[in-house]
């Protein structure tokens, strides 16, 4: 087909220059590549569908499409980490533009030009050329950043305890990307070298590179161009074909996972509904996960964001969320083929006559694919060893090291949900097998018998308030707020001081409130997160019965664990209340001028974010606002704060368990020491205990202390003489 010659004023380029006769072959090879791609997706699809319980994650499509746009296209979660975020963004957005560009070329060449319409001309062509080169360079930069990171700087998150995660697959994927871009620029520069259009200075990268070919005769350059063109084509098609068999599959699984991400409140655990008839509880076998929980594992790109802030991993425990998910994936890959076959035979035996027999072509293809996959990804070949999911594929030490701090889920750029999987497997160990740490068994017995983890007599629950004139709801149910004190605030000596300070503030501010006293039960958070859903529900129901009996509407807690359980999990059992954390109430009282902070508090304060307040409930500002209102205080932030805060080590029932090796709380306290804090301010009784102990273990208890926000506020209100330290051995009165 003839077209108007390109010239200044009618700038453009001939698509398929020097490759006019390759078109048919290109179509053929493309067809083959797409076939390999489609077969890979088909195989994978069958594997996704073969295992796991049903779960609907495509309700409310409109909202989910927004999430897909936010996390999938705009990559908001990926950008939370600058270097890898920019690295990935350069490659991703670079390719988005390049693919659009290729689509423009193809549209013009195959669709509009036959009708005499050429839109890639003139100024549009020049801008188009410039843009394509710019984004081509962006991809190149991104790939070089990735290569540098993976093979030169090698951050720990791309390894597990110093052992690199990198497999041939990672290198192949990056080299394919690199190859596409480099050959693309070489093709462009050879074309420019031969055709020499003056306007191609707009294709600035290709133009600059074409200077390298000065002196190469046109015919030689054309031959080089043709060769490079084919190499480029094969790399591109190879890339497409390779997608379903490699880590490149994340281009499909990760956006899918963003679309299907959890839309319930952070950390919600679906309650077990049938205790009476089930034979097994939680997840002991892969098939007991939902299919989405398994799909999660396939979406993992082992980027290691989760591992980077995991308190268990960073203190040398065997757990790494990345490793856990990858181990799950490996286990699934071992189990899935047999499950696919079993499902086919069960579903439609007539339709799959060859199954279980030799069906040479497909079997051979599958064998070759599996063999190559095993070689590129370092996966074991041959029949998988029969091993248990819980205890072998996932070791018990890993399972029990998790503090449920939610760092992994908050920071995962693929919307993977680690914590519910861990809880489900713990449920299996606790409920079905009753095989778990003796100290946790004791904790649960204490919670069963006395409704608190320490096992202190439950009749003593309200004693902390004895001398404060705080009424129980039994005495006066007509109050605005129930102060749900929780176990720490009721039984732990340190926690009781917080309850007292907070109750005094409420009384001073004229807030109408009451407590449940001995009628209060443990909130059950530690039971639930430690896998004892049965005990948790027993406790929750006891609380709900009492609270509903008094017609409770608003509840204040000083403990984020109770806050979270009451707010998110009690509604499952008919407990629907407005829940407030005491820092929310205190911030409000200060804002409304109901309390005034007068006394200056000297020293450097740092606020330690409780996981169950911050990451779980997005309460980051109120505690800081309160501290900001205290006169004289110098507030500094630790390096790990807000959504990237470091756990104290007590969540997920870890509070009640022995800890091996380096302690998480000591590590966190050391981070506060690093910023020269005099006081670690907290909003959680577990954190309070952990930080106090951490300060002691760091031998800083002479100069540092840990205080709850309520204690700081009460002191600053300056209404009470600080009690003189009791001199136990004062000189006897003469």
């Amino acid at each position, binding site marked *: 087909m003839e077209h108007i010659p390109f010239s200044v004023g009618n700038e453009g380029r001939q698509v398929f220059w020097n490759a006019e006769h390759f078109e048919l072959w290109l179509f053929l090879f493309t067809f083959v590549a797409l076939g390999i791609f489609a077969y890979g997706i088909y195989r994978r699809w069958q594997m996704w569908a073969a295992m796991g319980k049903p779960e609907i994650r495509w309700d409310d499509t409109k909202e989910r499409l927004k999430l897909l746009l936010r996390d999938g296209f705009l990559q908001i979660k990926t950008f939370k980490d600058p270097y890898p975020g920019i690295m990935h963004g350069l490659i991703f957005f670079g390719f988005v533009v390049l693919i659009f560009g290729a689509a423009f070329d193809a549209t013009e060449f195959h669709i509009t030009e036959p009708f005499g319409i050429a839109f890639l001309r003139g100024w549009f062509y020049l801008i188009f050329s410039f843009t394509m080169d710019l984004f081509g360079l962006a991809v190149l930069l991104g790939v070089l950043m990735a290569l540098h990171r993976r093979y030169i700087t090698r951050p720990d998150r791309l390894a597990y305890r110093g052992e690199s995660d990198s497999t041939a697959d990672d290198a192949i994927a990056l080299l394919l990307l690199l190859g596409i871009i480099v050959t693309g620029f070489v093709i462009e520069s050879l074309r420019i070298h031969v055709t020499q259009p003056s306007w191609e200075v707009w294709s600035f990268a290709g133009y600059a590179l074409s200077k390298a070919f000065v002196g190469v005769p046109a015919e030689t350059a054309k031959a080089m161009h043709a060769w490079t063109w084919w190499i480029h084509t094969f790399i591109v098609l190879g890339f497409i074909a390779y997608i379903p068999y490699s880590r490149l599959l994340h281009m499909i699984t990760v956006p899918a996972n963003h679309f299907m991400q959890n839309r319930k409140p952070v950390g919600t655990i679906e309650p077990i509904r049938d205790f009476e008839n089930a034979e097994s509880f939680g997840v002991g076998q892969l098939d007991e996960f939902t299919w989405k929980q398994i799909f999660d594992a396939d979406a993992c790109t082992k980027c290691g964001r989760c591992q980077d802030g995991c308190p268990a991993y960073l203190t040398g425990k065997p757990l790494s969320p990345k490793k856990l998910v990858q181990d799950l994936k490996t286990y699934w890959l071992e189990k899935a083929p047999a499950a696919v076959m079993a499902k086919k035979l069960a579903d439609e035996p007539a339709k799959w006559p060859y199954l279980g027999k030799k069906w040479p072509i497909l079997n051979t293809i599958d064998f070759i694919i599996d063999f190559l996959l095993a070689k590129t990804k370092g996966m074991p070949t041959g029949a998988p060893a029969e091993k248990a999911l819980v205890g072998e594929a996932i070791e018990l030490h890993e399972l029990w090291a998790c503090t449920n701090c939610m760092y992994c889920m908050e920071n995962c750029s693929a919307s993977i949900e680690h914590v519910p999987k861990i809880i489900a497997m713990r449920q299996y160990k606790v409920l079905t097998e009753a095989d778990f740490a*003796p100290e946790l068994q004791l904790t*649960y*017995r204490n919670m069963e*018998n006395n409704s608190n983890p320490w096992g202190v007599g*439950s*009749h003593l629950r309200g004693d902390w308030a004895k001398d404060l004139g705080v009424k129980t709801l039994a005495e006066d149910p007509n109050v605005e707020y129930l102060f749900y004190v929780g176990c720490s605030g009721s039984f732990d000596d340190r926690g009781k001081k917080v309850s007292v300070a907070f109750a005094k503030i409420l009384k001073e501010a004229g807030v109408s409130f009451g407590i449940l006293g001995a009628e209060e039960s443990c909130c059950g958070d530690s039971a639930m997160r430690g896998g004892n859903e049965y005990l948790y529900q027993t406790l929750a129901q006891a609380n709900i019965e009492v609270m509903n009996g008094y017609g409770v509407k608003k509840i204040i807690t000083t403990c984020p664990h109770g806050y979270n359980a009451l707010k998110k999990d009690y509604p499952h059992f008919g407990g629907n209340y407005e829940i407030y954390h005491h820092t929310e109430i205190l911030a409000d009282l200060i804002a409304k001028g109901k309390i005034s902070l007068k006394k200056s508090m000297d020293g450097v304060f740092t606020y330690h974010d409780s996981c169950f307040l911050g990451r779980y409930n997005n309460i980051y500002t109120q505690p800081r606002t309160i501290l900001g209102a205290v006169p004289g205080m110098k507030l500094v932030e630790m390096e790990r704060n807000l959504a990237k805060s470091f756990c104290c080590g007590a969540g997920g029932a870890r509070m009640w368990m022995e800890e091996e090796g380096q302690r998480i709380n000591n590590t966190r306290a050391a981070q506060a020491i690093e910023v020269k804090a005099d006081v670690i301010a907290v909003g959680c009784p577990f954190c309070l205990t952990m930080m106090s102990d951490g300060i002691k273990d760091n031998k800083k208890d002479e100069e540092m202390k840990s205080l709850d926000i309520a204690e700081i506020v009460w002191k600053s209100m300056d209404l009470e003489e600080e009690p003189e330290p009791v001199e*136990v*051995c004062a000189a006897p009165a003469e």
Partner: protein
Amino acid sequence: MNIVACVKQVPDTEAQIKVKPDGSGIDEGGIKWVMNPYDEFGVEEALKMKEKFGGDVTIVCVGPARAMETIRTALAMGADKGIHISDPALENADAYTTASALAAAIKGVPYDVILCGQRAIDDDSGQVGSVLAELLGIPQVTVVTKVDVDGQKVKVVRPIEGAQLVIESALPAVITATKGLNEPRYASLPGIMKAKKKPVDVKDAAALGVSADAKAKVGKFIPPPARPPGKIICADDTPEGKAAEVAKLLREEAKVI
């Protein structure tokens, strides 16, 4: 191998014990009832024997209707069936009457070993296991921390002051358990659910042909006197001075030395 484990329901160790104003007993309101911890060691050992040798574990308990919960707890841990001796007439049973009721019930079941707690933490009498063995006419080995069954013999370890005895006995025998014997298991949830359907025979004193007349009767329950506040020894700062002060107080005030 058939094993019988005797259990008693007692108030939780942390429960607040209030004596009724007339001194006739304790006020049961608000009390959390649990399995006597020493009996729990017995049940656990019974289950271990069952796992090793097979057979049935039967739980036998004397107590009011509420004691059924404790039997179910043992069944949830893995025992097979229960006998609940429930009779208002046995409410004030002494150790002898309780043992007689247990003996009568146990005579009806095949057994190779009988396990009891060494004592109950409520009345602390520590007699039931021994009386039971006497009534059944079989040997007893008491307060043991290790049990090894070997054919028709059992070898146990019994700690005594500064040493331990290794005692061998023929079977069947009564073995009473103490702390250190084992770590009682936490019941699995399927276990708890299955326990609800396991058979428990409820019998009264008449059905067992046992006289409910207690040989020893409790005259009156009296709460212990309130503990006086502690004292901090301040007289002298040196350890020697403090020790002298303590000795003086023990002799003159407490009059114990």
